[in-house]
């Protein structure tokens, strides 16, 4: 008690006021943090409210004008690189051998270079592969063919159920799937985070024993592309949805060409029976992501978006270009972000790889055409099923490997080493089948060379396999004139009933 008297009063006052100041400042600091947190909610102030599963890209474009404007540039078809680009290229005219290799399959009728996301709906309507259906239950293709074409797809899948969406003929959803690939295919409407909207990729990850929810942001910048740019098939034997062409990726054993072949062989899957050789053929469909994964860029952690959607600056504002196109169209913003070489050097580096792959790909194609034609000659000479089995087995594998490399966009750049390896495997199997045929044909009384068909042009090749192109084109024209306008009309009526709500 005596000690208190010893204290000097002003010391306590100083202590008191110092504490007041400290607490006041702490409070000020705390309140400023709270204010900033509230403020950051408004850093991005949307113009309109984007509904969940909103398929209209123009509505998203109201809030993200720069991204939308650049995305609209996928309409531009002026860029052409040495082998590809966004220009319209008739691949069958460029390489008529394709017609023979796909004889018996819709790809022999029509196969064009993909132009850009803007054309997704237009192209699938115009291609001869989808035929000319006259009513909703007509036509050669199932609804599954719409899967990758439009943000209307997740909208319909959510409403109808996944298997129910795939069910039915392609023409039955013609008036529902009308918006070309866009915002809702990759983005969450609220946070704009990258998001998987196609169940096939989720299921494929599960089949591999991987969990797609664990994907990092950098992986997502490739995985949203991998929703479509992958090898797939239509599974019609699912127990929970029989007779439905259920979109499935053959990834159970991994994403390599061998893993796909192993899977398809195990489930006895065949895309079509080859018209000439009667081979049960597997048609590879653009395994872009899979082959990219085997390349050096993927190995170094580069994502699709890094090169196909570079970060750009316009009028002082920076954003991700949504003009998805070959990086060769914009080397300065893509390659040169990491590589210090000149544009010419980099372009040469790419072309050198592509040219070398093209060289062995051409060899592999000629071998395969010969194998098909010689197999037909063997059948014609009276060969038995048993004798032909090992021949067709080799042709089947050779065609799978060749197509796996040929169907993939940009693969000869994405992964030149892996692609040359795969084409090498194809060449080996083609040669193997031709050795067997060379032993078999004389036994059947056929000696001398089986003549290589005159397939110098697309027309000659299509004639060779007996396609009536005039008929197909006429039917398509009729379809475009009569059916498609009705689809657009119905879609317009539906979309006009969806209001665009302005944010306050």
């Amino acid at each position: 008690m005596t000690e208190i008297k010893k204290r000097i009063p002003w010391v306590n006052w100083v202590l008191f006021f110092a504490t007041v100041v400290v607490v006041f400042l702490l409070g000020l600091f705390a309140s400023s943090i709270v204010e900033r947190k509230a403020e950051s909610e408004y850093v991005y102030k949307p113009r309109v409210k984007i509904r969940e599963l909103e398929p209209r890209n123009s509505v998203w474009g109201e809030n993200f004008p720069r991204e939308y404007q650049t995305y609209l540039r996928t309409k531009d078809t002026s860029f052409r690189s040495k082998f590809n680009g966004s220009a319209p290229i008739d691949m069958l005219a460029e390489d008529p051998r394709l017609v023979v290799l796909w004889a018996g399959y819709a790809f022999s009728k029509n196969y064009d270079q993909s132009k850009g996301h803007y054309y997704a709906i237009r192209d699938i309507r115009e291609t001869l592969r989808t035929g000319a259906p006259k009513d909703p239950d007509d036509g050669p293709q199932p609804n599954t063919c719409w899967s990758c074409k439009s943000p209307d797809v997740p909208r319909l899948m959510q409403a109808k159920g996944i298997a129910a969406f795939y069910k039915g003929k392609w023409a039955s959803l013609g008036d529902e799937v009308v918006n070309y690939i866009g915002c809702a295919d990759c983005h969450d409407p609220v946070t704009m985070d990258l998001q998987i909207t196609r169940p096939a990729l989720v299921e494929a990850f599960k089949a591999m024993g991987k969990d797609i929810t664990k994907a990092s942001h950098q992986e997502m910048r490739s995985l949203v592309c991998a929703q479509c740019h992958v090898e797939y098939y239509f599974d019609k034997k699912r127990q929970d949805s029989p007779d439905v062409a259920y979109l499935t990726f053959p990834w159970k054993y991994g994403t390599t060409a061998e893993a796909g072949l192993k899977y398809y062989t195990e489930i006895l899957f065949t895309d079509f029976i080859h018209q000439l050789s009667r081979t049960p053929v597997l048609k590879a469909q653009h395994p872009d992501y899979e082959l990219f994964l085997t390349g050096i860029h993927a190995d170094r952690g580069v994502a699709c978006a890094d090169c196909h959607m570079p970060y750009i600056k316009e009028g002082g504002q920076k954003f991700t270009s949504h003009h998805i196109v070959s990086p060769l169209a914009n080397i300065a913003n893509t390659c040169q972000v990491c590589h210090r070489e000149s544009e010419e050097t980099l372009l040469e580096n790419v072309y050198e790889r592509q040219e070398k792959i093209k060289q062995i790909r051409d060899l592999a194609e000629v071998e395969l055409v010969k194998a098909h034609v010689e197999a037909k000659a063997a059948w014609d000479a009276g060969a038995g099923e048993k004798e032909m089995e090992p021949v067709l087995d080799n042709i089947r594998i050779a065609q799978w490997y060749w197509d796996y490399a040929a169907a993939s966009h940009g693969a000869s750049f994405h992964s030149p080493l892996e692609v040359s390896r795969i084409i090498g495997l194809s060449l080996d199997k083609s040669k193997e089948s031709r050795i067997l045929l060379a032993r078999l044909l004389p036994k059947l009384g056929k000696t001398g060379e089986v003549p290589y068909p005159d397939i110098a042009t697309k027309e000659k090749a299509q004639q060779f396999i007996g396609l009536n192109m005039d008929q197909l084109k006429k039917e398509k024209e009729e379809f475009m004139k009569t059916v498609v306008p009705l689809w657009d009309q119905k879609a317009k009526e539906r979309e006009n009933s969806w209001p665009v709500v302005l944010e306050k």
Partner: protein
Amino acid sequence: MNKKLQWLIPPLPWRLPVAILLGIFFGLGILVLYLSKAGSYLSDDPKACVNCHVMNPQYANWAHDAHSRVTTCNDCHVPQTDFFNKYFFKAKDGLKHAYAFTFRLEPQVIIMEKETRPMIGGNCIRCHTETVQKEFLKPVLPLYHNHLEERYCLDCHRFIPHGSVGGLASTPNALIHPKKRNTVAGWIKETNIAISNE
């Protein structure tokens, strides 16, 4: 010693109010630690640097640059010489940021301060040691190698990795959500298809 401690203990009748006041004081302190996510600043996670939106443009620029594959913010902006230096700098810089934040002193366009240049310059060389060796540079850049010691990397490589100077308004749509990320669309999760293996 004991006597000095005794001096701090308030007399019996004062003890209750003093305890309550001290409780308020420390409670407020903990609240500030919580609100400011003080714990996150001990890590090297770049997400800590966008706890508030002031650094959004810098984060977005870095995230779109090749450096984001191999570096965090701290790799360049915090001394990496030793543990003590690193956390001393973090504490010092943190206090400065808290001060600027409280009194709203942060500029629209954030530009590196002169004093941090040597530190950042050193951090460039920390990774790019081979690249700046005279023996290596001589044949490549015969004219410039002589001046290596007189300048920092960033004197010339000014746009690495954030690009040209950009203010708060330069990346309006770079929505940064360090917290939640839904990699699979909500409606897919609601269906009966299996997603994860757990």
